[in-house]
């Protein structure tokens, strides 16, 4: 569903990605792990168009999308739940969710009716968000904001969803809930690329994983295979 070939990207003169390649098959959860500064978030940003890649290809459902604007790529079916959640603070929870579906909805009339089904689905997945639907997103707790960011991405009915560090800065009990959510998304058949610092937990939910170092993929495989790789084990899985 998502194919990344030899991707190069960076900020100004600093090159962060130096030829990263990976693949996410339909309905699979793929984890991307590695140290801080290895280029995981940059990979996500280069895929979703928030950063223009210098070289390389990104294929979404077989069609090249590299170099297109982020809004364009989003409309083609890629949803990015960014690091740090980035919810629209002053807007209500429900408005945040509706904005997630922006590209499918009519601009003026009837968008509530049209989005009702998708909203219900998100509220069923995250009952807490239903309780908070009229509350400003900025006043939600960190865990609730993360649920909202995932829900907002889901509202777009994406072909592929990118999930960047969903556990960052969350209490252990909420981290468990985030991983339970990822399991539920997986059960629903959502195609997911996941960047996560809790490498062990990420490998438990993933079907396949890539290890990134200095802008390249240095190891890949099913979680069970990576667990056998002593170097990966020592460096990332403790």
């Amino acid at each position, binding site marked *: 569903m998502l194919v990344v070939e030899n991707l190069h990207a960076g900020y100004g003169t600093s090159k962060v990605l130096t030829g990263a390649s990976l693949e996410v098959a339909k309905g699979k959860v793929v984890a991307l792990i590695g140290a801080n500064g290895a280029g995981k978030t940059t990979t996500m940003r280069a895929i979703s168009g928030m950063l223009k890649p210098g070289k390389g290809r990104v294929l979404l459902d077989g069609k090249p999308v590299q170099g297109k604007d982020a809004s364009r790529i989003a409309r083609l079916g890629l949803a990015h739940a960014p690091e740090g959640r980035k919810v629209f603070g002053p807007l209500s929870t429900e408005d945040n969710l509706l904005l997630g579906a922006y590209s499918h909805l009519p601009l003026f009339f009837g968008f509530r009716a049209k989005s009702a089904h998708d909203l219900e689905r998100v509220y069923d997945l995250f009952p807490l968000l239903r309780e908070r639907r009229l509350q400003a997103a900025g006043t939600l707790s960190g865990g609730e904001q993360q649920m909202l960011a995932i829900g907002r991405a889901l509202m777009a009915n994406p072909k592929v969803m990118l999930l960047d560090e969903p556990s960052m800065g969350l209490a*252990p009990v909420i981290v468990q809930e985030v991983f339970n959510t990822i399991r539920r998304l997986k059960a629903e058949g959502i195609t997911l690329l996941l960047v996560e610092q809790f490498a062990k*937990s990420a490998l438990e939910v993933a079907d396949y994983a890539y290890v990134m170092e200095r802008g390249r993929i240095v190891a890949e495989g099913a979680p069970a295979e990576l667990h056998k790789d002593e170097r990966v084990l020592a*460096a990332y*899985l403790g």
Partner: protein
Amino acid sequence: MLKRLLLIRGAEIIVFALLAAIPLMVSNSYALGLLTLLAIYGILLIGLDVTVGYLGQVNLAHAAFLGLGAYAAGLSVSLLGFGMLSALAVSMLVGLILGGLLAFPALRLEGPQFALATLSFSALSATILNEWEGLTSGAQGLQVSRPIFWGHTVNAQGFYWLCLILLALVWMAMRNLLSSQWGRAFEALRDSPIATDAMGVGTYRHKVAGFALGSALGSLAGGLYAFNFQYLQPQSFGYELMVILLLGVVLGGRKSLWGAFFGASLVALLPNLLSNRLLFEIISAVGLLAALLAGARGLMKKTTQPFQAIAPILAMGLLVVGGMFVKNTEDWRKAIFALMLFSVVVGLPEGLMGFAARFLIQLFRIDPPALPPASVLDTVLPAKAPNGAPLLKLQDLKRYFGGVKAVDGVSITVHSGRIHGLIGPNGSGKSTAVNVISGLYAPSAGEMLLHGKALPRGMFQVSKTGVSRTFQNLQLFSELSALDNVMVAMKGVYRTPLPLVLMGLARGEEKRAQADALALLELVSLRQDARVSAKDLTYGDQRFLEIARALARKPELLILDEPAAGLSLPDVNKLVKIIWSIHERGITIILIEHHMDVVSELCDMVTVLDGGRVIAEGSAEEVKRDPKVIAAYLGTADEADTADAV
């Protein structure tokens, strides 16, 4: 090092010597007038650059300060019979005082509101100059005679040299100031005003001082302006001049003395050059050529976006084509300025000088100045044997936001030399509690005692008591280098008073601060990245840099707010080592953290908050077994499931 000194100082000396020598070679009163204007505008723009460049505020009052300075100088000569130097001192003083008075309320505002406040100040001052006819003769204009200078009359040539000498003095003083702690503080507070307060650099104080200083330079230029033209009219200091001045700073390049100088030459010379048809055609052709070359080079090296390359070419092309059809270029002056400004803003966002500096540094391979060897860590952070007595006591601390009880009656005692963990679910009040302790929020009720004495209010005040902190959402000075980030916060080094700093007598303490900062960078293993700007460090290194910066306050109590958030396993291990080495120096630590393995390994004592209240306290092992903590925070999922998360 020597090469750097020779090239940079050499260029300054050559330019000033050339400027001083021109009147000896060419005796043309028109050229002399332009040169005098150049020197005056140089002082004016260096002053404006303090607010626009260093403080990063849009200042629309600078033309008004030029006018006020001009009238102050003119009136003190005609009414009080002052000589040249005392009249100039009066105009500078007027700028300093009025600038300070305007800055007090205006700098509480941010961005557009600040711009509007300065705009209303210039409207006010223009009205006063116009309407107070008894003093200023209003719109008729004020005749000013050039006063005597130490008993001598001054001719045009002598006056030019006086302006040039003043420009050189201002240049040197500003160079000394901006390369000292003051300049660093100006830049730091533009990036993160919260962090400058927390690091003991009074944000507001520095802003007011910077603005008053810039305004004083503007008024000094005004005094010279009055004695140059010897005729003043209020409308000369209106909106048009203000826009042209901003243009000069942006065109020349912000945060640079050379930039201000280039900006001044453009502002002073361009209108005159443009009135000459041939010169205009040459300038526009050169501009087009430069845009074409820069655009092609940028596109080939992929350093610029297509829009950035093409827009200046179109604008300069329009200038060349337009020049063929326009009869009198003088009438189109503002349009020409607009096109040039547009090209520079789009194509060279850092201004002409910013671009040239980067190019010249590459061309001559100028290295940054060498760093001194790092100080011994023991002299920077002397190890102390803690006595284990209570250091910080919170008693029934409360902080409400409207109806939300973020902290609702928390009592904690932190003993000296300990690592005290503070954990709890998101929204349980941990961050609010440390924000209250560090002075970002005032408490709604309750007491905070450090060594038995009440903590003061406000971050700046708290930062002086030996409490230092890091931030959950990084608050680095992102444009500054790692070294400068630490140097901004360095406590107990900067003692030289301002007048001596202006004279360049603060170099010794500057070296000392560098050496001390390097020792702290070494502690978090960032020594080799000292010159890298904070925004280019990896996320993990940014977290470590915040710790080094907090240590520069030489704290007794260090508050770490989620230092491991978002760190991968290798970096988490490094963080634990760093915290141990800080602990060994006898520094008391409050650690807010969600990684329970980090908390268990480091903390002697852990307090658990939920809903703004303490629900458990004890050793890490004790609280981990507490059913209330498991329910509210740790979760009951089986251990293997999220082994590394718990």
